[in-house]
């Protein structure tokens, strides 16, 4: 736990940007293993998340392959369940969360004018926990009984019965949680203690604000998940009966504890995405963000409300109607601050000088599709409707509109937006736009039709379905393969940018106004802001 002050012996680099090729004492692989530099660690987070995105994506394709036709084709139901489970866990904990931690590592120190993260070595450790957790998750496929096939929510009582793969998953969740908590404390400390002189909290770029609030959510919610899986572990091996009904435990109790973590988790994923969008839209509208203060308050309101709505994931467990009503009203209440955000983004664009480069396209795609996902969420928040739609493909469509069109689109917007600053080179704008349009079309092809399937009653997590669902499933599967291939194009665009992109100017986006654009050259030097800028 060392602060940045003594984490590097590079005082000679003070004030000179020509030292940006000085990468600490090691070279080759050791540079990456030992690095305490926030930019290196951010890069590793982003690449790790992309790899996990590919692994989780392959599992999604396996699922869509099996669902291409009714009947059983490629996988037995057990394998199908394992793919469903691992797809969810890997995408949530391995792909989306690390992606935004990567953005935080790269951007927060630069945006608040800090030289690095507060705890540089801890930062290194937070990242290097991840590959081990990812390996444990993937290893569980090769244990007797295979990976857990219980769904990413790890519901009891199935988790109490699964084979050794379940234990590996529990440890993976512990490690991932530890990594997230340490990373969050690091981010909170950096933002609270290390802002440049004059950078008051209410002058911070909104991305820093959303991450600050996300980090609070992580510190409060992740330990509860750790507790839930620890209880599962002791139920499995040490004779406790928290969830084991045979000994007087209650599986419904698990659902309550899990979703007490699980709903804030939704906003842990969504809030940093909101933050990226709140940087991109003003930059390409050439206007400051509309209603900055209300954005901050709306984000806080969402975060606080997220702790009192968890049971809307479990309306059907047989809770009293009073409970259902409470959670229904609390849930619909979240639409208010979220609506404030959406209207603010729209108002930011109002009468702006808009241009539509790739980051802006992804931000607009986010705005449309995330709002659609928000609306289906509002539909699902209503108890009588939810009881019909619970565990159908309508729910699958809903949360993929929020997770993919919300978080992933925003991550793409962020990568295209900051890639010039990170690499010093421009990405291929034409290919970027192709990537956007293909992603948009294939995304809707996969998930829009799943609303119809859900309304017609197709249950989720089942490898087979009646003939009447065939057409929409075929369209969805074709869309999934198109979507998967399109992401290889994204990989190509990023690699091409790194290898042979045109040199980028210091501020390639006219309307961008945060410190990394106004105060740092392109590419951002390895050590930046060792003398903190003064913000007026």
């Amino acid at each position: 736990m060392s602060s940045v002050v003594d984490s590097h012996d590079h005082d000679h680099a003070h004030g000179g940007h020509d030292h940006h090729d000085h990468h600490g004492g090691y070279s080759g692989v050791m540079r990456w293993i030992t690095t305490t530099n926030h930019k290196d660690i951010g890069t590793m987070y982003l690449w790790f998340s992309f790899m996990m995105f590919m692994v989780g994506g392959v599992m999604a394709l396996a699922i869509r392959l099996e669902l291409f036709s009714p009947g059983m084709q490629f996988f037995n139901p057990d394998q199908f369940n394992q793919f469903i489970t691992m797809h969810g866990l890997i995408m949530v904990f391995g792909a989306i969360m690390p992606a935004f931690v990567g953005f935080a590592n790269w951007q927060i120190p630069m945006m608040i004018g800090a030289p690095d993260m507060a705890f540089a070595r801890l930062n290194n450790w937070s990242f290097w926990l991840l590959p081990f957790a990812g390996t444990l998750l993937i290893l569980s496929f090769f244990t007797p009984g295979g990976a857990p096939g219980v769904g990413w929510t790890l519901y009891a009582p199935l988790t109490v019965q699964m084979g050794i793969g379940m234990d590996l998953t529990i440890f993976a969740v512990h490690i991932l949680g530890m990594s997230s908590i340490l990373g969050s404390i690091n981010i909170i400390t950096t933002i609270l203690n290390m802002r440049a002189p004059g950078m008051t909290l209410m002058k911070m770029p909104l991305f820093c604000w959303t991450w600050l609030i996300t980090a609070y959510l992580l510190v409060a919610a992740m330990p509860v998940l750790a507790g839930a899986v620890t209880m599962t572990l002791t139920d499995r091996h040490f004779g406790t009966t928290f969830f084991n009904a045979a000994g007087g435990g209650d599986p419904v109790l698990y659902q309550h504890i899990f979703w007490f973590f699980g709903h804030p988790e939704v906003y842990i994923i969504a809030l940093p995405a909101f933050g990226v969008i709140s940087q991109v839209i003003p930059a390409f509208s050439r206007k400051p963000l509309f209603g900055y203060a209300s954005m901050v308050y709306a984000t806080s309101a969402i975060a606080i409300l997220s702790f009192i709505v968890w049971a809307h994931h479990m309306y059907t467990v047989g809770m009293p109607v009073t409970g259902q009503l409470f959670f229904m009203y609390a849930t619909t209440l979240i639409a208010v601050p979220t609506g404030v955000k959406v209207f603010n983004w729209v108002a930011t664009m109002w009468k702006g000088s808009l241009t539509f480069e790739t980051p802006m396209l992804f931000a607009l795609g986010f705005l449309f599709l995330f709002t659609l996902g928000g609306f289906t969420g509002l539909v699902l928040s209503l108890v009588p409707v939810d009881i019909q739609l619970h565990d159908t493909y309508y729910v699958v469509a809903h949360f993929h509109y929020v997770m993919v069109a919300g978080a992933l689109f925003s991550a793409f917007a962020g990568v295209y937006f900051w890639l010039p600053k990170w690499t010093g080179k421009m990405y291929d704008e034409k290919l970027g736009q192709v990537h956007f349009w293909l992603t948009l079309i294939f995304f809707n092809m996969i998930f829009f039709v799943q609303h119809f399937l859900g309304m017609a009653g197709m249950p989720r997590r089942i490898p087979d379905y009646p003939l009447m669902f065939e057409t929409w499933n075929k369209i969805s599967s074709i869309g999934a393969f198109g979507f998967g291939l399109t992401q290889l194009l994204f990989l190509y665009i990023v690699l091409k940018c790194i290898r042979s992109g045109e040199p980028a100017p210091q501020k390639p986006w006219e309307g961008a106004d945060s410190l990394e654009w106004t105060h740092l050259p392109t590419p951002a030097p390895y050590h930046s802001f060792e003398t903190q800028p003064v913000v007026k």
Partner: protein
Amino acid sequence: MSLERQNRRTFLRFALIAAGMFGFGYALVPFYYQICAAWDVRNIESRAERPANTQVDLGRTVTVELDSNTHKLPWSFRPLVKHVAVHPGEVATVEYEVTNTRGVPITGQAIASYGPQLAGEYFRKFECFCFTQQTLQPGETRRLPVVFVIDPKLPRDVNSIALSYTFFEVEGRSAAAAGDRS
């Protein structure tokens, strides 16, 4: 205070919050059971099956007045006794007699009602012809028993309960029964 010390202090503060939240997860366990008990939602057996004190309250006598009606049904329907006196908690049996006066089979369903209405809550029927539909052949007469107990929790000011049955015809079933015969 140096930045390093300040950072360390912030770290400790949030590490404590994280540890506290880990404990909070465990605190949810007793909390859950308390909430369930308060709302009476986590009962393995349904409320009706739960054992209660079945002692007969010999200090009270409740008169049960028996009443019978038919609704647009050509049946004669009457209780064998007009009223019966029972102690709360005592198992009692009464009988009704019903005759189909029409030349075709007819299916009927009896619906019970109580006066005063709140007495219905304390009137526990173990056996009743109103649990199922009754199909009577032409001219058939049938004796229909009702086995019941009055819950000793019946409010003390209720001294008599009117138990009234009304037979309604189940029209589709009657036609089907007639069809079977022809």
